[in-house]
């Protein structure tokens, strides 16, 4: 039998509302139904003016971050009956401006993300633009940053961080985790350039390990951990204790490597 759940949804229309308010909708819920499904039910049957952001509906695109029962998480991978028996509050991610209803303005996060140079930085720029070979990286070296690559930029960590709540200029967990993702990549040589920002007064040292970012992250990225690695490296760099390492070298051109004996050759090209 379907349960009826009261969805208490934050509404805000910039054209006519002074401030956000909460509107309640009764939604019949089946087992397995996600909060995203519930919002679709409201839009299709109860109130077509409700706005929110989503795309993939499977926890991949990072668009549907919301505050569900006070906790920042993805609407598409949260089942209603897992978190509610009678009532469910649905609000936009805090620490971001509200554009409309459940749609936060994530631009501040993306600007901070771009600022940490979230890409491989190397002196041989020509090679990056027009690659003529491959860079060698061992599985262990990959393991040093792989966890931090799973971030889908949903902003849940930014909404949960108490430091960001009082310091709007703090870079925040997502951009700092992205900085560590590239700093730890052996192909990269941009750490010292990133240190300018990550070591600034609104950078990594603003974090005091409240850990909320890691607790809410829907992808297991553990940004709090990345930030602590970032701090260690900043301290070592500041004290000139870090060994200067060259980024890993180019191995050989495409197709010029020696394949291992136990690897089946690739099938012939079809296009």
């Amino acid at each position, binding site marked *: 039998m379907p349960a009826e759940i009261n969805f208490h949804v934050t509404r805000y229309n910039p054209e006519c509302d002074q401030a956000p308010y909460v509107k309640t909708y009764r939604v019949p819920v089946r087992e397995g139904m996600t909060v995203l499904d519930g919002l679709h039910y409201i839009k299709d049957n109860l109130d077509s003016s409700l706005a929110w952001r989503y795309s993939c509906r499977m926890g991949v695109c990072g668009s549907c971050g919301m505050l569900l029962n006070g906790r920042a998480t993805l609407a598409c991978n949260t089942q209603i009956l897992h978190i509610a028996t009678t009532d469910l509050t649905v609000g936009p991610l805090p620490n971001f401006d509200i554009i409309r209803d459940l749609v936060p303005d994530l631009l501040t996060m993306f600007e901070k993300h771009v600022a940490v140079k979230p890409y491989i930085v190397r002196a041989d720029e020509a090679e990056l633009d027009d690659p003529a070979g491959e860079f060698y990286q061992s599985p262990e070296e990959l393991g040093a940053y792989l966890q931090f690559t799973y971030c889908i930029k949903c902003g849940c960590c930014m909404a949960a961080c108490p430091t960001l*709540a009082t310091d709007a200029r703090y870079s925040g967990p997502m951009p700092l985790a992205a900085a560590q993702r590239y700093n730890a990549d052996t192909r990269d040589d941009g750490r010292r350039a990133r240190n300018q920002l990550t070591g600034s007064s609104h950078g990594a040292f603003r974090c005091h*390990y409240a*850990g909320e970012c890691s607790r809410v992250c829907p992808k297991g990225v553990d940004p709090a951990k990345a930030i602590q690695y970032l701090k260690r490296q900043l301290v070592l760099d500041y004290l000139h204790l870090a060994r200067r390492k060259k980024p890993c070298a180019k191995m050989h051109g495409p197709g010029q490597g020696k394949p291992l004996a136990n690897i089946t050759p690739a099938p012939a090209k079809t296009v």
Partner: protein
Amino acid sequence: MAEIKRHDNRLGLWGWLGGGRWGIERYAYILHRLTGLGILLYFLMHVVVTSLRARGIYLWVEGGVFHQPMFKFGEFLVFAAFAYHALNGVRLVLVELGLAVGKPIEPVYPYKTSLGVQRPLLIAMMILAAILLAAGGYNFLSLAK
């Protein structure tokens, strides 16, 4: 294009206090900030009070204001704040140097975070803080008699 109106949804101080209902580290974070501010306030008062000496005012002598029970209790609070702040600070130094958070792992569901790795350290520090508080409290009480 006309500028779209937005609603500022920053949590402010509420983000420290009201949002904390999930993890012990968040409470440790709030308490660390509050005790830090408390110790700073004490330090400022301390400077003012001792500087009054230049005007011949000695508030701390036998029978002076600072021998009132309220100030004794206040002193104990300063000690408690110091004990907590120092011990939690040791944990934070270790954590922030990346020493107590473990290695990067593959995020396989159910996700594990570094919070679990440093939790024993947090618990050990809190037990130490509790022992210090009990010893300090005993000392204050016996001096008060």
